[in-house]
């Protein structure tokens, strides 16, 4: 192997008391695609932040091309040729797509003035090559999370870099975009650019990664070539459990069909919002898991939000158990038993300043209090139950939720909604960023909830999950329903071809 391009050695990083990284070392050869795997909270993002200059390590050193480097800021790292796509995207939502893409390297005219005409056309062109066709002048926040992820990616690889670090770049991407991404990684590899790749989707790792580092509780538990490590062993290393135990569990934890019977508990009809949704109708029976399929920007997130009363609509109605919901009121929907797990947990989900405990109790407060006074005992009970049931990894219920790893934050949000004892669960990418172990748990949970009689709407960019988990999948495209698949027709290919058909016709 050639001399390592990037050498990380003996990194220790502590946060008030918690040791997030404990003497972590890692070598990266030029052109190598290196997988960094581990459970939620294992320390992957922290390591990446150390490498990219966001954190400075308490101990240890980073060498780039043999020279020791110390980055004070991400800017220093970028100047040395280390680019990153961070887990929480790390773009500015209020700025336009083009500005986000080209911030800091805008095309300029004389006197250093930015040439907006060229900037917009360049941005549009770049994004087109990644299959993103959007108005680059619109603010970034108007896009779905998947599209934002692609933009962050395009931003990171469109400059000269020596190392590109990707922290869960595919967590919101469809198969089509994943393919685009892998094409990009292939090109980087050919140019001798190294990639550190973090993902909880194991099959992706096997498709593109050469080496692997497995982290557990901040320590390296395995390092070597990925090809030599079979999938089962990888999982057992990550989770720190026996091979046999892992083997017993399948790929996904869905049991298959549920027996949903009786009248639909939720009927949404004619949901319409200009430019976004056009006459979308969905019905869910108790005990049924209905999937929503579609490409980026198909309007799945909007559909879920519309049902939950979180989106202003131009038309349409939502009834729960025969009762019409007041339009545009999230409170009314929640009261009727509709719970929405939002896609963007950072801006729409967690309350970063509050503790795990308070985040979990938030939506269920009316049930957990009497006469406006909260009952700590009841909250403790519920929080305890869900922290155990979902295996939330935190220093304790009083730790600030912002300090949890991404996956654990997601579990906290799921707990928040389960605590309200909903009748209908709208899950927008529920397993996004969750590790294999936890993912299986969440999937099992969805199954279990459905069999307890909950109606579930499942949105997932993981097609396998969608197909395995749903009883029926409604396929959306450009804000309209273009098909519905169930039973034998419900396959990954089926969904893709339904979408493609419309495209042709």
């Amino acid at each position, binding site marked *: 192997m050639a001399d390592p391009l990037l050498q990380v050695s003996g990194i220790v990083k502590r946060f008030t008391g918690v040791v997030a990284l404990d003497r972590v070392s890692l070598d990266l050869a030029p052109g190598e695609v290196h997988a960094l795997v581990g459970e939620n909270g294992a320390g992957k993002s922290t390591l990446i932040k150390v490498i*990219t200059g*966001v954190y400075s390590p308490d101990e240890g050193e980073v060498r780039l091309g043999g020279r020791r480097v110390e980055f004070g*800021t*991400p*800017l220093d790292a*970028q*100047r040395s040729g280390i680019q*990153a796509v*961070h887990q929480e*995207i*790390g*773009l*500015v*939502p*209020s*700025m*336009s797509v*083009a*500005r*986000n893409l080209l*911030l*800091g390297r*805008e095309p*300029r005219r004389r006197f*250093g*003035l*930015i040439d*907006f005409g060229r900037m*917009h056309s360049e941005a549009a062109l770049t994004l087109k090559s990644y299959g993103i066709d959007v*108005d680059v*002048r*619109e*603010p970034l926040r108007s896009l779905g999370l998947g599209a934002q992820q692609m933009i962050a990616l395009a*931003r990171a690889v469109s400059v000269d870099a020596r190392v590109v670090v990707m922290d869960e770049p595919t967590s919101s991407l469809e198969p089509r975009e994943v393919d685009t991404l892998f094409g990009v990684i292939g090109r980087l590899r050919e140019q001798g650019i190294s990639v550190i790749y973090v993902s909880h989707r194991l099959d992706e790792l096997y498709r593109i990664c050469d080496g692997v580092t497995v982290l557990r509780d901040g320590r390296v538990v395995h390092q070597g070539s990925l090809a030599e490590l079979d999938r089962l062993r990888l999982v057992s290393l990550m989770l720190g459990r026996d091979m046999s135990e892992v083997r017993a569990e399948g790929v996904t934890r869905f049991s298959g069909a549920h027996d949903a019977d009786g009248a639909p508990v939720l009927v949404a009809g004619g949901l319409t919002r200009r*430019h976004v949704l056009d006459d979308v109708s969905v019905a869910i029976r108790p005990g049924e898991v209905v999937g929503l399929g579609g490409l980026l920007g198909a309007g799945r997130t909007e559909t879920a939000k519309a049902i939950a009363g979180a989106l*202003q609509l131009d038309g349409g109605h939502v009834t729960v158990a025969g009762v019409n919901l007041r339009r545009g009121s999230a409170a009314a929907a929640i009261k009727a038993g509709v719970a929405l797990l939002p896609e963007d947990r950072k801006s729409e989900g967690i309350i970063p300043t509050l503790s795990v405990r308070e985040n979990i109790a938030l939506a269920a407060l009316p049930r957990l209090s009497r006469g406006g006074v909260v009952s700590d005992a009841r909250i403790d009970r519920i929080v305890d139950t869900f922290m155990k049931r979902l295996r939330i990894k935190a220093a304790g219920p009083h730790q600030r939720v912002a300090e949890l790893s991404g996956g654990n934050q997601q579990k906290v949000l799921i707990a928040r909604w389960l605590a309200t004892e909903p009748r209908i669960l709208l899950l927008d990418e529920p397993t996004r960023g969750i590790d294999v172990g936890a993912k299986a748990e969440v999937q099992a949970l969805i199954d279990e909830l459905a069999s307890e009689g909950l109606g579930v709407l499942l949105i997932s960019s993981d097609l396998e999950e969608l197909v395995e988990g749903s009883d029926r999948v409604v396929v959306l495209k450009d804000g309209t329903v273009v098909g519905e698949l169930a039973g034998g027709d419900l396959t990954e290919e089926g969904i893709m071809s339904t979408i493609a058909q419309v495209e042709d016709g």
Partner: protein
Amino acid sequence: MTSTVTAPAEAPPGAGGRERFFGLMQRHGATAVLVLLVAVGSVSFSSFPTGDNLGNIAITSSFLATVALGMTFVIITGGIDLSVGSVFALGGVLAAYGMRWGSFAALLLPLAVCGAFGLVQGLLIARVRLAPFIVTLAGLLGARGLLLSISNEGATTYLIPHGSLLARFGQGSVLGLGYPVYLTLALFAAGAVLLQRTRFGQCVYAIGGGEDAAQLMGVPVTRTKVLVYVMSGLLAGLAGALNAARLSSGVTILGTGMELDVIAAVVIGGTLLTGGAGSVSGTIAGVLLLGVIQNLINQIGDLSSSYQQVVSGGFLAVVVVVQTYLSRVQRLR
């Protein structure tokens, strides 16, 4: 919505005139209210739309505007600068004090001291990471204290002699508008270019839109924030010096409460206090709105001072409600 601030945002495909109209309103809500108010004023009071009167509004507003220009940058980064009123007064006193070494020194001294003041505040905010509100509140006290100690607890008022270069600049006028008005316009033009058309400006927006994200994207956050506070200090000092030149003296009792007027002007101009959005053209409109409101209250004439306050608070409420409403129509789309 920063993207719409710069480039003339094209209406989305298929959008009707209605949406284009609201788009325009969102960017120029304060301007629209201003135009309305000027129209009403002109119809109601014959002595309002005269050249003299409008020239007065312009020169009076020009100092507030200069200070507000710096504040606009600060607020877009998500910060705030409460020290501007004191620094404004300090700038004036320093200018008059510096007159003993000539007009040139009289201009340089306030710029140097007030710039340094901004630098210290900026470093405390960006490097030591103290809350801008508190740092600049301390700055408000500190600058006032400095002013008092220079002026012998406010007992000494230094003068800027008639006919000195500085005084002539502060008091002269062409075409019915004072020189400071032209300088302010030039500063705003430069400010607009800096904010909208340079990388520095992009960084300012990015920091306000999300400081952590901006940091991750490689924005020099610390440097940009420090610079923004330096700018604010410089502009407040400059405005103070020019005002002193106009008044021919370093009046010590100026600037108390000015910070709130400045913040109000900036926010009415459509800049979000949470950062990430705003424009300098809006700020001009905001400043002029305040000036016109004040002028109209005087035009009404026989109001007691208490009623004047009530009316001006009421005006303010109506203006922000209308302005907020206009912007929201767009945001909801």
